[in-house]
């Protein structure tokens, strides 16, 4: 499994991605934008619904003026009506575009699905099968899949073992092994069996697979609003009601001063005041958030989970594979008193030549690095390798006779036995006297520091030990520092004893550690954090991880894991890369930030719009209010038209931001808030002053109003 981007402390790169604006997607979105004018679809978005009603009203006013004539020039009324419709269309377009991108992503995953018939069995060991279409399979059905066939649905292997090519969904070309029992029993529909045959139990009913769920999340019509989105929608509805009240009462107050306000201007005022910018982009932001997750090959089962990811306070990370490289590596040769290090290294090197375990390979590599021993240059004739067995708990090599390092062979009668193994195994072989006091101390020291001592003996003489230790992944320490700056605690979970665990934890720079972890203790730890009000994220793959995955607020199941784990988690990582948990958190944060930033921007925009429209409304009755015309807009009509045009165009201008999400660099909240307030608060205050003025200049130059 690859470990993408471990060298960059900021973010993994997304696995795949389309250009922000793809021609085909744009065309499809334009059509969808029109389709979304259906009132039932619009009603899902109250702010845009009100805008649509206002557009309809302005069209009616235009038709009335066309027939009966009115006080406001007909061309201006017509333009206002048109721009109000554009405002609605831009909003539906933004949503359609986000959906289109999400669907394109989903479709590339869905393509892996085929309509090939599945071979349904009555029982795991049945000889006969019936052919049914893959789409007709229901949870609990047993299916036989043989080499070369496509797996018809998500499920668990109940018998057999096979290699499976999962490149269609993970992009990883090396086939993986799937077998019954254990933690590698889950298979995903759409992947291909490369060798052997397996019987699997289908886990989902039609339309309920991960892919189906994810597709539902990016399709607007079925998408459920997330808790945070609901709260924001309520705020926007509240503001819309307040502005309705403001606009509805304005004619009464104006009539006191004898000022009549044309209805079309009131409609324009309403639309510019209600938060159309964020209202129009809200669902696009949500869909784009899901889509970003998919680009990282993570499938969320609900939008709620993505939002919760942004709130996470504690990350539970498995030591192996996440914090350390999977296996222990030789780090140092520690010779016994009176033994040259080179001699120890040579013995260990020879004993490991045929050892294909990662530990063995790492000893060879270390010896080569320190003393230049070349495994290729060694003549292996006459060497007889002794493999590791559970009985001897040693491995090694028998040499034909005493010989100098790497060099010429000498004649010898008895073979020389070189052995490496755990302390007690070698000690038993050498006898109590064979172990010096210094060596015993060294063994204890290594164990205390979190390493594993591997003793090396030549015949009865113990030469010293090789220190094996967990190697912390490069760059992981920086990533944990980043997380700490973001206010997220990292907890390392490991089955190691507390001493070993503490040593690795210190090296990796995690905040806390759970040693001698069992599924129960893991669950207990999560509950403890949650009782303190913290949100916990974790990833896991085994069946025994399932309760903890279900308990965690964000549980990312590895796609290679068991079906139970994948059911329990609320996200599935198709690439099974546990470090991605960090990206998931960042995507969640970016989603929330994008909403907040655009809401702030949208509300701040209103100030400038007021200064454009209010003088324009009342100037006929009270010419002195010209003093409020800070922007020096040419005429009341052009002022109102400019505000409306700005209001519509700003939605389009912000679509890329909504789809990409606001720039996010990990930093403490106070820093983020200061920067975003400056950019989106102050920016939102100032930008429309310039924007409306420019549009006014254009409108006047073109003689539009």
């Amino acid at each position, binding site marked *: 499994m690859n470990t993408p981007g471990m060298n960059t402390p900021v973010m993994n790169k997304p696995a795949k991605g389309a250009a922000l604006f793809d021609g085909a997607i744009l065309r499809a979105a334009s059509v969808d934008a029109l389709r979304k004018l259906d009132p039932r679809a619009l009603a899902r978005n109250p702010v845009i619904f009100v805008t649509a009603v206002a557009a309809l009203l302005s069209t009616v006013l235009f038709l009335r003026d066309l027939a009966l004539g009115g006080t406001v020039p007909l061309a201006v009324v017509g333009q206002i009506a048109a721009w109000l419709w554009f405002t609605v269309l831009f909003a539906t377009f933004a949503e359609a575009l986000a959906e289109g991108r999400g669907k394109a992503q989903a479709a590339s995953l869905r393509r892996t699905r085929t309509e090939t018939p599945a071979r349904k069995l009555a029982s795991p060991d049945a000889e006969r099968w019936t052919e049914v279409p893959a789409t007709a399979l229901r949870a609990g059905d047993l299916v036989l899949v043989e080499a070369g066939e496509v797996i018809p649905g998500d499920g668990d292997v109940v018998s057999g073992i096979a290699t499976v090519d999962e490149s269609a969904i993970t992009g990883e070309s090396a086939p993986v092994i799937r077998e019954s029992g254990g933690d590698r029993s889950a298979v995903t529909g759409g992947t291909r069996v490369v060798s052997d045959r397996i019987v699997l139990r289908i886990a989902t009913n039609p339309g309920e697979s991960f892919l189906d769920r994810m597709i539902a999340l990016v399709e607007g019509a079925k998408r459920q609003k997330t808790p945070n989105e609901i709260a924001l929608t309520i705020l926007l509805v509240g503001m819309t009601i307040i502005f309705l009240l403001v606009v509805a009462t304005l004619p009464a107050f104006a009539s006191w001063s004898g000022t009549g306000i044309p209805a079309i201007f009131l409609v324009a005022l309403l639309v510019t005041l209600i938060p159309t910018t964020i209202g129009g982009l809200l669902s696009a932001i949500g869909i784009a958030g899901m889509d970003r997750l998919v680009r990282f090959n993570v499938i969320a089962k609900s939008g709620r989970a993505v939002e919760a990811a942004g709130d996470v306070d504690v990350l539970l990370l498995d030591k192996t594979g996440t914090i350390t490289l999977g296996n222990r590596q030789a780090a140092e040769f520690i010779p016994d008193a009176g033994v040259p290090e080179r001699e120890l290294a040579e013995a260990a090197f020879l004993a490991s030549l045929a050892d294909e375990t990662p530990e063995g390979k790492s000893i060879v590599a270390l010896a080569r690095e320190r003393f230049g021993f070349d495994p290729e240059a060694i003549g292996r004739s006459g060497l007889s390798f002794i493999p590791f067995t559970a009985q001897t708990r040693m491995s090694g090599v028998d040499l034909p006779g005493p010989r100098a390092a790497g060099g010429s062979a000498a004649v010898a009668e008895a073979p020389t036995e070189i052995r490496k193994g755990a302390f007690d195994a070698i000690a038993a072989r050498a006898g109590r006297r064979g172990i010096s006091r210094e060596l015993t101390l060294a063994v204890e020291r290594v164990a205390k520091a979190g390493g594993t001592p591997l003793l090396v003996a030549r015949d009865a003489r113990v030469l010293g030990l090789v220190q094996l230790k967990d190697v912390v992944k490069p760059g992981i320490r920086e990533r944990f520092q980043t997380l700490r700056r973001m206010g997220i605690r990292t907890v390392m979970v490991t089955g190691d004893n507390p001493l070993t665990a503490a040593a690795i934890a210190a090296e990796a720079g995690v905040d806390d550690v759970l040693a001698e972890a069992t599924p129960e203790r893991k669950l207990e730890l999560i509950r403890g954090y949650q009782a303190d009000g913290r949100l916990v994220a974790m990833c896991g793959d085994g069946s025994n991880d399932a309760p903890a995955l279900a308990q965690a607020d964000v549980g990312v199941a590895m796609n290679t894991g068991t079906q139970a784990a994948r059911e329990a988690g609320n996200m599935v990582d198709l690439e099974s890369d546990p470090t991605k948990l960090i990206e998931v958190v960042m995507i969640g944060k970016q989603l929330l930030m994008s909403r907040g930033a655009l809401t*702030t921007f949208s509300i701040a925009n209103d100030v400038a719009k*007021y200064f454009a429209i*209010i003088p324009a409304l009342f100037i006929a009755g009270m010419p002195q209010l010209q003093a409020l015309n800070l922007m020096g807009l040419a005429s009341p009509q052009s002022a109102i038209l400019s505000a409306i045009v700005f209001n519509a165009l700003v939605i389009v201008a912000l679509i890329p931001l909504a789809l990409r999400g606001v720039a996010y660099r990990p930093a403490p909240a106070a820093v983020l808030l200061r920067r975003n307030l400056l950019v989106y608060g102050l920016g939102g205050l100032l930008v429309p002053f310039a924007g409306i003025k420019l549009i006014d200049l254009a409108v006047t130059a073109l003689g539009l109003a």
Partner: protein
Amino acid sequence: MDHQGLLQILLYVAVIVAITPLLGGYMARVFTGERVGLSPLLGPVERAVYRLCGVRPDQEQHWTAYALSVLAFSLVGVVMLYALLRTQQWLPLNPAGMPAMAPDLAFNTAVSFVTNTNWQAYAGESTLGPLAQMAGLSLQNFMSAAAGIAVAVALVRGFTRRSTRTLGNFYVDVTRATLYLLLPLCVAGALLLVWQGVPQTLNAQTAATTVEGASQTIALGPVASQMMIKHLGTNGGGFFGQNAAHPFEGPTPLANLIHMVAIFAIGAALTNMFGRMAGDVRQGWALLAAMALLFLAGLAVALWAESQGNPALAALGLGQPVNLEGKEVRFGIAASTLFAVITTAASCGAVNAMHDSLMPLAGMVPLVNMMLGEIIVGGVGAGLYGILLYVVLAVFIAGLMVGRTPEYLGKKIEAREVTLAVLAILALAFGILGLGALATVLPAGTASVQDGGPHGLSEILYAYTSAAANNGSAFAGFSANTAYQNVMLGIGMLAGRFLVILPVLAIAGSLAAKKAVPASAGTFPTHGGLFVGLLAGIILVVGGLTFFPTLALGPIAEHLLLGAGVRF
């Protein structure tokens, strides 16, 4: 502005800042049920009250029970006061033989005093006898203030308690607020005022012979005691129709300062109490700082507007075109302006100058103070819970920008809290804009307005703003005592009080049930300058966006027209 004026303002701010932690610490002990210095003296009284009223002080209430208690308590208050006002001619302690109040005026007055508004559509000294003043109005001055404080305390408990269903006991909170806070401060303050020459007597009036030899009847009464609670409890209902502008209410500059300090004292101290109960005093100072920022900004605008003088007077060739009409000339323009800004900021509504006579923009500052929802120190209790509603909004809008579900004091602000905060803010907008617009178009409403043009509009706007914001101050020139205005303003006052209190208590209940998330580098700090600025900004933007169009038609238009030489 003269040095004396500046000195006065600095002295005032210094006094408030000095007493805030003292009083705040005391209140935190009172409302967490701890023993205080007065406990040996008042403890038996407190227990007697509970026995008498059948209150079980250890029995805490769910937010719905707490809210029902507030409503029931207020309803009883309205009914009792209404009955008293309608029957005072038959009751004792009415030496001047004042007649019964008209039904609509009695409704308006009863609602006004129970909602802590103290809008007075009548002149107190010529309408009410001492019994109605003391057993009716003064009693409600205490009760409405105590109820406001209780609601604020309940909301503070909502923010600071964890995973609980209860908010405390309303009756206990009201009793403790009255006994341990309002009464002792009033007694001390009233004695200070009597020392400064404010009358305190049961005689209704005294006869005097003027310098010209004419005989004059001067109204008297228990002025000092009612003065103190009207300011301390931000009630504002004066003994005299002219309120604090009457020489008997504010005889000396020191008495004037005591009034002003009393108006802000409890409201400011409540922020400190909030900080202490939250376990972080800085949270309280941050709220007070946001209030101070808005207060000083408003004061600066008002002082600037007044110092510009009146161009109309300048046009008449007067050397010093300073606008002195309707000012408390003994203390100067700065003091009058300061008082106006304080009284409207604090929802007090006591006045020592005629706000109607302020320069248009200076007159707008009190209006804006009220439109923002009386959150600049605000009414006792109401100010704190009002600004906490804006905190909910500010935290929600800006909090998202740090990439987390927004939280304040560790409590997540979610859909429920946002809905309720928006409802409360809508209630104020409805009271001011909805009812105000109605009064502007209906003949029954416009009949009360003395002036035409933008100034007339300001008068209507001011009346409805004052009512909905539970302030009670008035622009003169508006005849409030008509059946229409009495009823509609009464509705405005009820909406402004209870349609805010209900959502506030619902928020308190919802927050109290939540767990608190421990603060980390990922949660944005709510005690720093950034948050203060953000909060003040959100208050100005939300309030400003709601009311800018109407303000443009009223005071802003008047200001601009005055500059152009148009008068009304």
